[in-house]
């Protein structure tokens, strides 16, 4: 099956030799809810803006539902609804309703149908009362909702949400989460960038971590955690162990001051066997503590190579 989005060896060097993307290759499957994580400047927005037609890649390509985002940009753009990070809204003379109706029109939707869709979205996002207001009269949260409604007005199969919950209150954040989950369940592919790692962990089935313009890891939150920072077991015995028992090499064992540390889980039979063996050798197990890393720990592990960033 074709990918919803396929970044293929994407490079982008801005004027002034700023290398924003260094060969990004990443596939987002159809129907997937993927999180794109990275520090500021990792290349998240640049990669999205290539799809949006706002950035010309230096080399490489992006396919959107099989359409080349550069050579077949009209077909590619029709597949995507983008909610940008910045509050970019046509505030010059259009009111909220007109912004949505015009946006639908750019995507080839006739005025009557566009008005119907705008009505529904304004009600859904709690903006109906503000439909005749200018953007400057909206609060930050309202603008964020309008941006999401704009991305949805042409009912695209793929949604790209660039930090959609940045700066919004808790209630709206939960509303956005519920809406995104429902849209994904209805079959839409969602690519989400966020700095809230708990948000990514909660919503995304798969996560891609970008660092310095390249992909450094991809997988489900659970996979990333177990692969990059596996569970750590701290086993305390009486008497203290003086040597590492045999047969535990695959768990990267080491002796700490007062415990034996293993990388592994209690659910692993070999770990259980090791514990039984200790008991059989007259060691009393005082405690077994399982330490599980969080996605944030994994993220920091993968992106903290540049120690000079925040000294």
């Amino acid at each position, binding site marked *: 099956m074709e990918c919803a989005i396929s970044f293929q060896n994407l490079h982008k060097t801005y004027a002034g030799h700023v290398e924003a993307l260094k060969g990004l290759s990443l596939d987002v499957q159809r129907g997937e809810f993927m999180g794109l994580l990275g520090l500021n400047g990792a290349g998240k927005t640049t990669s999205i803006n290539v799809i949006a037609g*706002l950035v010309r890649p230096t080399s490489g390509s992006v396919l959107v539902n099989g359409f080349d985002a550069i050579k077949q940009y009209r077909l590619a753009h029709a597949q995507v609804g983008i909610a940008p990070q910045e509050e970019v809204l046509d505030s010059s003379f259009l009111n909220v309703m007109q912004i949505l109706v015009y946006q639908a029109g750019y995507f*080839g939707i006739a005025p009557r149908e566009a008005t119907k869709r705008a009505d529904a979205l304004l009600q859904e996002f709690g903006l109906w009362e503000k439909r005749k207001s200018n953007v400057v009269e909206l609060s930050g949260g309202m603008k964020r909702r309008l941006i999401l409604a704009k991305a949805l007005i042409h009912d695209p199969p793929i949604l790209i949400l660039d930090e959609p919950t940045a700066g919004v209150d808790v209630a709206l954040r939960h509303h956005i989460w519920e809406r995104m989950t429902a849209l994904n369940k209805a079959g839409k592919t969602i690519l989400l960038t966020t700095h809230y790692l708990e948000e990514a962990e909660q919503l995304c089935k798969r996560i891609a971590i970008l660092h310095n313009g390249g992909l450094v890891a991809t997988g489900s939150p659970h996979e990333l955690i177990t692969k990059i920072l596996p569970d750590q077991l701290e086993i305390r015995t009486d008497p203290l162990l003086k040597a590492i028992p045999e047969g535990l090499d695959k768990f990267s064992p080491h002796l700490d001051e007062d415990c034996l540390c293993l990388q592994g889980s209690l659910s692993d039979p070999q770990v259980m066997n090791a514990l039984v063996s200790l008991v059989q050798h007259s060691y009393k197990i005082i405690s077994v503590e399982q330490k599980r890393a969080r996605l944030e720990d994994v993220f920091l592990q993968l992106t903290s190579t540049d120690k000079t960033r925040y000294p």
Partner: protein
Amino acid sequence: MIGFYTYFKREVARFMQDALNTIAPSATSVILYIMIFGVALATRLGLVEGQSYTRFMMPGLILVSVITNSFYNPAFSILQSRLYGNIADVLSSPLATSQIALAVILAGMLRGLVVGTLISLTAWLVLGFQVQEPLFTLLYLLLASMGFAALGSIAGLWTHGWEGVNVITVFFLDPLVLLGGVFYSLEMLQSAPLLKTITEINPFTTIIGGLRAAMIGTTEISVESGLLLTGILALIFVSLALVLFHRGYHLKA
């Protein structure tokens, strides 16, 4: 076509919803010219190329209004959309870059022609001003508005701030127009050889002379030569605008 029409409609709505600030000022200033020159001064200035001064000046005033309005609309609209960032709405849509450029140019043309029509109607009502060759005149104004709307869209892409549009106006449009014979004929410049030379090499002199021939029947410059030059300029500016939009000049990083 819905997408193209929608963007065109947006660009038209932009100046129509704010007609008091877009249409009215230029129409009003030209109507003031008509009142001052036509009613107060025309009898003292005598005939120019066999025409009353007001009648001689009228085609130039109409043309200047048409081209400045055609120029300003896309220039300000594109610049504003770039500065506010909402140009992304159309760049991220399925609209072709050529459709974006043409919608902007057509809306600029429409604004120029609306102002031109208002001034012509006023001239007809106040001075009884009538056009000799309506079809040629219309073709002329269409081509002129097209060329200068395209130039305006280029200016909107090129400049990074509002001052940039002013720079083009002050250093390019104003000299072109004011030294192009809107208010005088070449035969009036016998005692000013430098001004006469500048006026002669100014392409706007040919454009305005040709329009004057079509509107009031003067013979200093032929309709055809003016029309040809206007058409060539329109072709050059529209082509350049299409190329710049296609390349994403100052639109894409």
